[in-house]
C-alpha cells in the first residue's frame, strides 16, 4: 500500500494544470532565489503562456496535432452549418443503419463460418426427384453407401425433425431431431456438457437417451443439473446424456429441442419392406472435391437405381452439394437481394452526401483558396477535407448502428419467421466492425469528389468566374441516385405484386373462425388402435357440445399447409383396370383421412355426388371423396361418382361417393396436387398406409369452426383436451394466422425491399431538389438577364425543369436497363408475376419521373419568381 503522499503525487491530473504547476514551481523558486516577487520572475521568464502552448504541443505527436486541428476545425465548420451536417449525417446513417441491420441478419447465412468444424468438407448427398428436389436417400441405400469405399470418409444420417411432447409436469410440444450416433462427430459439435451418443444407443430398442438444446436446458429446466436425469417424453422415460452447445444449428436451420438417436433397424431396412427416408451428410476425405465425391458415388447410385421401378428412373438424379449450399439454399437469393438493396440505399446516401459536399465545397471555395494562398499544402487541404468526411461518417456510423438496432427490432416484429436465425441475429463485434469499415468507406466515397477539387486561384478574385464547371458531376450523381432508386423500386414493386397475388390465392377453404390443434397420442399411454380411436371419438363428442363450437372435425392434416400424406397417381387402381406396372408416376396425390364434418367446417363444397354422412361412419364399406382434379385425372371423360378405386393396388376397394371442389394442399406456392379424402370409420380396418382411413397413427388434427370469438373459445378447447388427458400438450392455432405465417417470408422480403426503396426514393428526391436549387442559385445572374430581356416566369420555369428532366430521364433510362437485369435475379422470389412485368416496371418508372419532376418543381418555381433586379446584382 502506497502512502497517501505518493498516491497524491502519482495521481493523474489535468495535463494543463500540471504544466501550470511545473512553471509555477519554477517561477516561485526564481523569485525566492532572486529575492523578488513572482511577477518580476514572470517578466524575466519571458512569455509564460506561449511557453505553455509550446509545451502542450510537445505532448502529442505532430501528425496527431494536425488531426486535432483538423478535427477542431471540422467541428467548428459543422456547427456553423448545422443544416448541412444534419442532412449528411441523417442520409449516411440511414444507409449505414440499413446495411448494418440487414448484414446482421444475412451474415450467418451467407458469410459467417458455419458453427461446425471444417464445415467446407461436409457435403450433403442423396437422390433428388421432382417430388423431393432436396437430397434424400432410402435407408437400405444409405446402409450400402456407408459401408462401401468412396471419397467420403465418415457419414451421418438424419431422419429430420418430428414433433415430440414433454409429457411430465406442464406438457409441452417440442421438436426432436432424429440423427445417427455419428452426427455430432461428423459435424465436430462438442456438447456444451455431457456426452454424445454411443453406437450402442443407436440400435433398435436401446435404452432411450437424448441431448437437449441449450435453450431448453436454460428455459424449461432452468439451467439446473440435468445430465443423467430421466425425462418423460412421449410417455417414455428418456435419459438426458448431454446439453447441445448454444446456437446449435440443425441441418435445414430448423430449431430442435432434443436430439435423439435414429435407431435404424438395419436388417429390417435391408428387406426393403419398410424404408426410412434419410438426409445424408458426409465428410470428404482430405483434398477431395464435391465433383470427386459425386463421381465416387456414381457406381453406388447406379446400383441403387436397380431398386427403382424403371419408369421412375429418369426422374431420379444423384445430387451432391456443399453443406452451406444445402443449408441456405432456400434463403440465399432473398438474403443477397436484401443485402444488395441496402447497399443500393447506401450508395444513394453516399451520392447524396457527395452532392451536398460539392455544394458546400462551392461555397467554401474562396476559403480554401485563401488557405492555399497563405501556405496550406495541397495534401494538407485534402487531409482537411477527408478529416471532415470521416468526422461526418463517424457521427453517421454511430447513429447508423443505433438505427441498425432499431431496424433489427422492426424486422423481428415484422416477421419472426421471415428469415431463419432472425431471432438470434444480433449486432455483435463482427457486425460492428463491418459497420465501422462501412462508415469509413462511405465517408471516403462521399468525400472523394469534393476532396479532389483543387481550389483555383481565380476564386480569390471574388468574382463568380468559376461558375458551372463541375455541374456534370453533380447531375451525374443525382441521375445515379435516380437509377439506383428505380432498380430498388422495380424490385419492391414486383415483390409487393407477388405478395398481393399470394394473398389473392383461392385456398378453396374458408379460413375465418377456424381453430385447429394437433393432438398426438403416444404408444406408451395409448398402445392399441382401439384406445386411440376411443380417445379421439370421446374428444370429438366433448368438443361438439362445447358452447361456441359450430362444427368439429377430425383430420390427419389441415389445408393449405404441406407435409401431408401422399400416394403416387399411377398406383391408384381403378376397378376393372389392373395397374400398369410400367406407367410413370403421374405425380403425387394428396391423401387425407377425415370425419364427415370436415367439408362443412372448412366450407369445401361437394360439387357432384354426396358428402359423407354421420351414418357412413359405421359403414363396413370403404368410402372415398375425390377432388375435381383427381376426378378429372382418373376419369377424364365420364363421371367419377359411384366408381371404385384401390389406392396402392391392393387391399380394400373404396367407392367414390362425391367430388369435392379443389382446395389448396401444397402450401401457398407449390403447385396443387390432386387429392382424395378417406372417411375415418368407427370400425377401422388396418390397411397399408396411407390409404387406410384408420386411427392407427395416433396423430390427428381437431378442426373447429366457432360461432364466437376465436380467442374466447381456445381456452375451452384446451380445458376439454386436458380433462381427458392432462399430459397432452395443447397448442391451438387459428387457420387465418397459419395462412398468414405461410406468407411470412414473401411479406418480410416485400416489406423490407419496399422500405429500402422508399428510403432511396426519398433521398434521391431530396438530392435532386438540392441539385436543382443549387443550379438555380448558380444561374441566378443569367436568369436575371433572361428575364430582363423578356423571358416570362413560365419560360424560366421550363428552362430549369427541362434541364433537370434531361437528367431525370437519363437516370431513369440507366435504372431501367439495370433494373431489367436485376429483376431477373429475383425470379425465384416472385409469385404470379414476371420479372419484366410491363405494368410494374412502367408504373415504377412513371412514379420515379413524377417524383423527380416534383422535386425539381419547387426550385424551378423559385427561379421563376426571381426579381430580375435582385438577380442581376447577385454576385
Amino acid at each position: 500500500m502506497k502512502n497517501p503522499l505518493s498516491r497524491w503525487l502519482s495521481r493523474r491530473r489535468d495535463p494543463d494544470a500540471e504544466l501550470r504547476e511545473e512553471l509555477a514551481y519554477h517561477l516561485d523558486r526564481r523569485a525566492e532565489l532572486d529575492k523578488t516577487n513572482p511577477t518580476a520572475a514572470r517578466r524575466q521568464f519571458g512569455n509564460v503562456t506561449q511557453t505553455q502552448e509550446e509545451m502542450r504541443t510537445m505532448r502529442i505527436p505532430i501528425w496527431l496535432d494536425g488531426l486535432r486541428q483538423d478535427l477542431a476545425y471540422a467541428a467548428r465548420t459543422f456547427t456553423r452549418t448545422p443544416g448541412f451536417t444534419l442532412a449528411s449525417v441523417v442520409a449516411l446513417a440511414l444507409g449505414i443503419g440499413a446495411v448494418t441491420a440487414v448484414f446482421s441478419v444475412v451474415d450467418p447465412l451467407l458469410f459467417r463460418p458455419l458453427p461446425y468444424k471444417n464445415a467446407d468438407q461436409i457435403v450433403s448427398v442423396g437422390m433428388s426427384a421432382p417430388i423431393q428436389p432436396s437430397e434424400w436417400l432410402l435407408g437400405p441405400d444409405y446402409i450400402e453407401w456407408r459401408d462401401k469405399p468412396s471419397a467420403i470418409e465418415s457419414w451421418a444420417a438424419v431422419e429430420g425433425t418430428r414433433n415430440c411432447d414433454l409429457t411430465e409436469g406442464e406438457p409441452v410440444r417440442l421438436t426432436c431431431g432424429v440423427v445417427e450416433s455419428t452426427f455430432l462427430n461428423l459435424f465436430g459439435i462438442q456438447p456444451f456438457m455431457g456426452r454424445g451418443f454411443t453406437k450402442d444407443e443407436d440400435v433398435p430398442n436401446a435404452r432411450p437417451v437424448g441431448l437437449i438444446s441449450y435453450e431448453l436446458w436454460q428455459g424449461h429446466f432452468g439451467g439446473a443439473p440435468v445430465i443423467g436425469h430421466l425425462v418423460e417424453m412421449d410417455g417414455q422415460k428418456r435419459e438426458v446424456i448431454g446439453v447441445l452447445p448454444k446456437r446449435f444449428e440443425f441441418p435445414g436451420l430448423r430449431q430442435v429441442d432434443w436430439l435423439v438417436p435414429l435407431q435404424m433397424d438395419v436388417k429390417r431396412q435391408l428387406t426393403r419392406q419398410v424404408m426410412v427416408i434419410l438426409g445424408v451428410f458426409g465428410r470428404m476425405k482430405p483434398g477431395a472435391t464435391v465433383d470427386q465425391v459425386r463421381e465416387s458415388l456414381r457406381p453406388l447410385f447406379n446400383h441403387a437405381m436397380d431398386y427403382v421401378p424403371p419408369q421412375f428412373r429418369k426422374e431420379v438424379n444423384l445430387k451432391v452439394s456443399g453443406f452451406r449450399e444445402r443449408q441456405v439454399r432456400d434463403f440465399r437469393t432473398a438474403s443477397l437481394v436484401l443485402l444488395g438493396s441496402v447497399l443500393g440505399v447506401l450508395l444513394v446516401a453516399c451520392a447524396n452526401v457527395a452532392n451536398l459536399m460539392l455544394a458546400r465545397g462551392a461555397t467554401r471555395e474562396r476559403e480554401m483558396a485563401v488557405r492555399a494562398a497563405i501556405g496550406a499544402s495541397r495534401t494538407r487541404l485534402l487531409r482537411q477535407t477527408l478529416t471532415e468526411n470521416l468526422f461526418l461518417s463517424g457521427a453517421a456510423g454511430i447513429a447508423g448502428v443505433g438505427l441498425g438496432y432499431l431496424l433489427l427490432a422492426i424486422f423481428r416484429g415484422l416477421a419472426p419467421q421471415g428469415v431463419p436465425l432472425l431471432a438470434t441475429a444480433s449486432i455483435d463485434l463482427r457486425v460492428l466492425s463491418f459497420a465501422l469499415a462501412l462508415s469509413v468507406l462511405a465517408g471516403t466515397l462521399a468525400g472523394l469528389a469534393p476532396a479532389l477539387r483543387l481550389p483555383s486561384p481565380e476564386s480569390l478574385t471574388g468574382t463568380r468566374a468559376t461558375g458551372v464547371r463541375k455541374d456534370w458531376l453533380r447531375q451525374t450523381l443525382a441521375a445515379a441516385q435516380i437509377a439506383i432508386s428505380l432498380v430498388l423500386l422495380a424490385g419492391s414493386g414486383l415483390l409487393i405484386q407477388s405478395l398481393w397475388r399470394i394473398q389473392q390465392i383461392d385456398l378453396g377453404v374458408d379460413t375465418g373462425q377456424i381453430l385447429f390443434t394437433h393432438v398426438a397420442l403416444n404408444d406408451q399411454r395409448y398402445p392399441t388402435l382401439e384406445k386411440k380411436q376411443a380417445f379421439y371419438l370421446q374428444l370429438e363428442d366433448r368438443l361438439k357440445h362445447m358452447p361456441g363450437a359450430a362444427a368439429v372435425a377430425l383430420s390427419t392434416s389441415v389445408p393449405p399447409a404441406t407435409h401431408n400424406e401422399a400416394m403416387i397417381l399411377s398406383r391408384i387402381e381403378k376397378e376393372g383396370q389392373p395397374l400398369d406396372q410400367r406407367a410413370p408416376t403421374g405425380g403425387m396425390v394428396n391423401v387425407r383421412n377425415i370425419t364427415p364434418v370436415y367439408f362443412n367446417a372448412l366450407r369445401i363444397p361437394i360439387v357432384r355426388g354426396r358428402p359423407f354422412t354421420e351414418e357412413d361412419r359405421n359403414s363396413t364399406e370403404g368410402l372415398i371423396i375425390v377432388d375435381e382434379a383427381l376426378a378429372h385425372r382418373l376419369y377424364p371423360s365420364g363421371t367419377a361418382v359411384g366408381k371404385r378405386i384401390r389406392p396402392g393396388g391392393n387391399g380394400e376397394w373404396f367407392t367414390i361417393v362425391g367430388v369435392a371442389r379443389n382446395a389448396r394442399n401444397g402450401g401457398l406456392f407449390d403447385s396443387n396436387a390432386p387429392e382424395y379424402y378417406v372417411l375415418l370409420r368407427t370400425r377401422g380396418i388396418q390397411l397399408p398406409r396411407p390409404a387406410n382411413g384408420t386411427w392407427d397413427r395416433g396423430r390427428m388434427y381437431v378442426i373447429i369452426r366457432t360461432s364466437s370469438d376465436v380467442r374466447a373459445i381456445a381456452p375451452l378447447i384446451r380445458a376439454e383436451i386436458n380433462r381427458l388427458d392432462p399430459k397432452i400438450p395443447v397448442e391451438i392455432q387459428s387457420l387465418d394466422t397459419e395462412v398468414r405465417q405461410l406468407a411470412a417470408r414473401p411479406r418480410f422480403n416485400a416489406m423490407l425491399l419496399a422500405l429500402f426503396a422508399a428510403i432511396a426514393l426519398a433521398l434521391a428526391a431530396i438530392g435532386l431538389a438540392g441539385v436543382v436549387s443549387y443550379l438555380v442559385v448558380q444561374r441566378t445572374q443569367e436568369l436575371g438577364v433572361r428575364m430582363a430581356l423578356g423571358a416570362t416566369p413560365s419560360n424560366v420555369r421550363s428552362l430549369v425543369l427541362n434541364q433537370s428532366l434531361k437528367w431525370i430521364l437519363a437516370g431513369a433510362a440507366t435504372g431501367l436497363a439495370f433494373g431489367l437485369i436485376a429483376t431477373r435475379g429475383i425470379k425465384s422470389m416472385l409469385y404470379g408475376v414476371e420479372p419484366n412485368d410491363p405494368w410494374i416496371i412502367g408504373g415504377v418508372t412513371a412514379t420515379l419521373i413524377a417524383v423527380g419532376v416534383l422535386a425539381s418543381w419547387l426550385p424551378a418555381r423559385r427561379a421563376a419568381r426571381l426579381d430580375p433586379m435582385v438577380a442581376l446584382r447577385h454576385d
Partner: protein
Amino acid sequence: MTNNLQGTIDLLILKTLERGPNHGFGITLHIQEVSDGLLKVEEGSLYPALHRLDRDKLVDAEWKVSENGRRARYYKLTPQGRQALAAQTESWETLRKGVKKVLRFA
C-alpha cells in the same frame, strides 16, 4: 550568453541529468553554476525542450517532492537519453574542434 543553437540546449539538459534526476529550475541553476555564469539558459525555451525530450523518450518525468518540500516535476535520463547524450557530445566535440581550427586559421 544565450544559446539558440538548435540541439545545444538538449545537450546541456542531458549532460546535467547525467548526474541524476533534477527539476527544471535545478537544471537552470546547475548550468549557470558550472559554467560560472557564462551560460544562462533561457527559461522560456527550457521547458518546451524538456517536454520534447520527454516526448522523444530521452528523459522520463515524474512528480516528486523537492528539497524545499514542494511538488516538482523531476526529469531523469533514460537509456536512450544516455545514448543520445553520448552521440551529441561527440558531435559537439567535432563541431567545437572544427570551429576552433577555422577561427585559429582565419
